[in-house]
């Protein structure tokens, strides 16, 4: 009797556990496909960002196939869960190349795990497109050990570029003092340091800096201290779900304090609309619908595919990383890693956030502004939705008679 009752329950649990997170390995090795390995944290504390990553990669895959594929081949992404760990990222990167026959890799998400993915790319001599991780270690390694890491390219912004975009916005808003609070992870500390250097050059002073532990995120005391700092604006350095909880606390203790989030969770309209609109809530993003025709088209496609709009960061950058990689393969004209590396080093590849060009020495995408270049954007959440506030959308050119 007991066994009869138990069997359906255990079967359901076992069936569920048996369902693979990615695609079946049985599809591996098909000759008419171009396989790209995706390394993203699909479990662990950054699974939300990893899921956005995967959604965007799927969208880029579908777009490429809708255009007839690449070099006559159908694009197929093969997915691995890095779990946010360096060793897992390295091992899964090697597995995607050796067993899944991935031509190139896109990933990972966190700076720490991306360093592991770089080792996999170097060992297997496959291209790695880094979409999100911002640590200086990535470009430092490419510069100093060129022969080993020449296959690594970063599509996302580097820490100094990120700080530069944030500080340009703050300077334009005539901010005098700011507070910085973020999750105590590596790139956040690097961002705080770079932001301080960038803003001090513009005469903007840091009055408070604090980090909360991702493992023990007791937000209240950190929010209390930030609220007491008297800053003109609070820069929130956490693209994960911690930013939401922290923003709620800050709204309690300092309802009039403007917030500038570096992106991620607070770029989700479903989340942003639950915060009290007592003070401005700004979110920095790689691109945003309304900022450019391509960003608008991407936003509409993403929303149609997934039922809600993109966040402009953890989805847009991976989308562009894969789109740029595929464009470079097309430009190279053949499935040869060295040829694609050369194409990436010399070409310009339009995507959602703008035209991607890479610095030949560091393989860093040039987020340095300019009309056609990559410049990022800042939005303001207002009743009814988001509005692009930086850079100012250019007025249409008057037509000549």
């Amino acid at each position, binding site marked *: 009797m*007991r*066994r009869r*009752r*138990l069997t*359906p*329950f*255990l079967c*359901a*649990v*076992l069936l*569920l*556990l048996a*369902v693979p997170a990615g695609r079946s390995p049985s599809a591996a090795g098909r000759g008419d496909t171009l396989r790209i390995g995706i390394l993203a944290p699909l479990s662990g504390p950054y*699974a*939300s960002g990893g*899921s*956005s990553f995967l959604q965007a990669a799927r969208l880029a895959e579908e777009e490429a196939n809708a255009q007839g594929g690449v070099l006559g081949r159908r694009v197929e992404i093969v997915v691995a869960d890095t779990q946010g760990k360096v060793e897992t990222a390295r091992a899964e990167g090697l597995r995607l190349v050796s067993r899944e026959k991935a031509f190139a890799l896109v990933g990972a998400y966190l700076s720490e795990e991306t360093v592991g993915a770089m080792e996999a790319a170097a060992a297997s001599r496959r291209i790695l497109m880094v979409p999100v991780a911002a640590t200086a270690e990535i470009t430092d390694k490419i510069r100093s050990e060129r022969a080993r890491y020449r296959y690594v390219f970063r599509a996302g912004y580097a820490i100094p570029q990120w700080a530069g975009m944030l500080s340009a916005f703050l300077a334009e808003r005539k901010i005098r003092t700011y507070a910085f609070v973020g999750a*105590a992870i590596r790139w956040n500390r690097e961002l705080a340091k770079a932001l301080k250097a960038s803003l001090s050059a513009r005469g903007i002073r840091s009055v408070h800096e604090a*980090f*909360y*532990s991702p*493992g*023990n*995120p*007791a937000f*209240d*005391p*950190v929010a*209390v*201290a930030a*609220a*007491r700092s*008297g800053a003109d604006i609070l820069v929130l350095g956490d693209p*994960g*779900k*911690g930013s*939401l*909880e922290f923003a*709620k606390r800050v*709204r*309690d*203790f*300092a*309802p*009039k*304090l403007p917030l500038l989030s570096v992106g991620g*969770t607070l770029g*989700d309209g*479903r*989340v942003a*609309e*639950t*915060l*009290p609109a007592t003070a401005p809530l700004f979110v920095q993003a790689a691109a945003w619908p309304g900022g450019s025709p391509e960003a608008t088209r991407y936003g509409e496609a993403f929303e149609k595919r*997934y039922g*809600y709009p993109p966040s402009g960061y953890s989805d847009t950058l991976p989308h562009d990383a894969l789109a740029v990689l595929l464009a470079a393969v097309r430009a190279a004209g053949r499935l040869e890693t060295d040829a694609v590396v050369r194409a990436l080093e010399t070409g310009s590849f339009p995507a959602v956030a703008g035209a991607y060009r890479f610095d030949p020495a560091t393989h860093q995408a040039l987020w340095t502004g300019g009309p056609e270049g990559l410049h990022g954007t800042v939005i303001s959440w207002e009743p009814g939705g988001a509005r692009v506030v930086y850079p100012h959308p250019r007025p249409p050119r008057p037509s000549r008679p």
Partner: protein
Amino acid sequence: MTGPASPLVQIVADGLFTGAAYALMAAGLVLILGVVKVVNLSHGAFFTLGAYVAYSLSVRGFANPAAAAAIAAAVGYAFGLFMGRSFINPVRTHPFSVAVGTLGFTLLAEQVAQSLWGPHALSVAQEPPLSAVLGVMIRRQGVVCLVVSAALIGGLALFLRSRHGLPLKLIAEDEEIASAVGMDVERIRALTFAAASAAAAVAGALLAPATAIAPTMGRGPLILSLIVVIASGMERTGAVFGLAVALGILSSAEAYLLDPQWSYALMLAAVCALLALRPALPGLSGAGSDR
């Protein structure tokens, strides 16, 4: 700015409110451990369920925290009853099966939540703070948490002391005797499991406005509740409440006073020390239990 007089005072207040919700969850675990005699690793999934119930209600315009808690209790009870009858009762004498099964249920629940609501963090609007008393910010949701938690845990303590709680106490002491005197032990166990699951769902619904709602959000509270139950023992509901609140305050105070990279490790070290000293600490040794 409406700021508090002292961050440390605010920490104590917030630890009290948040700890109250975790106490409710821990009280459910105590019931399951005492009566059903299993370590339920799916308890966090019921916490998550409660939070998603609150979210689902809020997007439909029902944002009352007490109503959300009541509906979460009903949903948690129904799922708990199903699980208690279909899985826990049949395998409860095999600890390994219980551990694997309840862990599997947690993963199943996380997958289902991800399928239904997506992988991203969701949010329930938080009502404005009630007021600042002596510079300390009092949140409406925190007060609701404290009142509901204290009422339910107090009610549980009174129930266990009353004539109606006798079957639970007897089953906890000796289920063979309970069975011999005509009690439907299986049914009482399933109902206890359901009630404890409802308590976890209520805790999730109460904390939903203050937190980010995500499929894996129940894992942290589960660990915290297990720590509370282990440290307080299974016999004293008052100790469960006190320890959950103390842990909430300790966690916040450490995060404020220490570097973030040390605060979590030091909190775990404090808990380990508490466990090691537990037999020697008055009030935590299990002597003089409510039961």
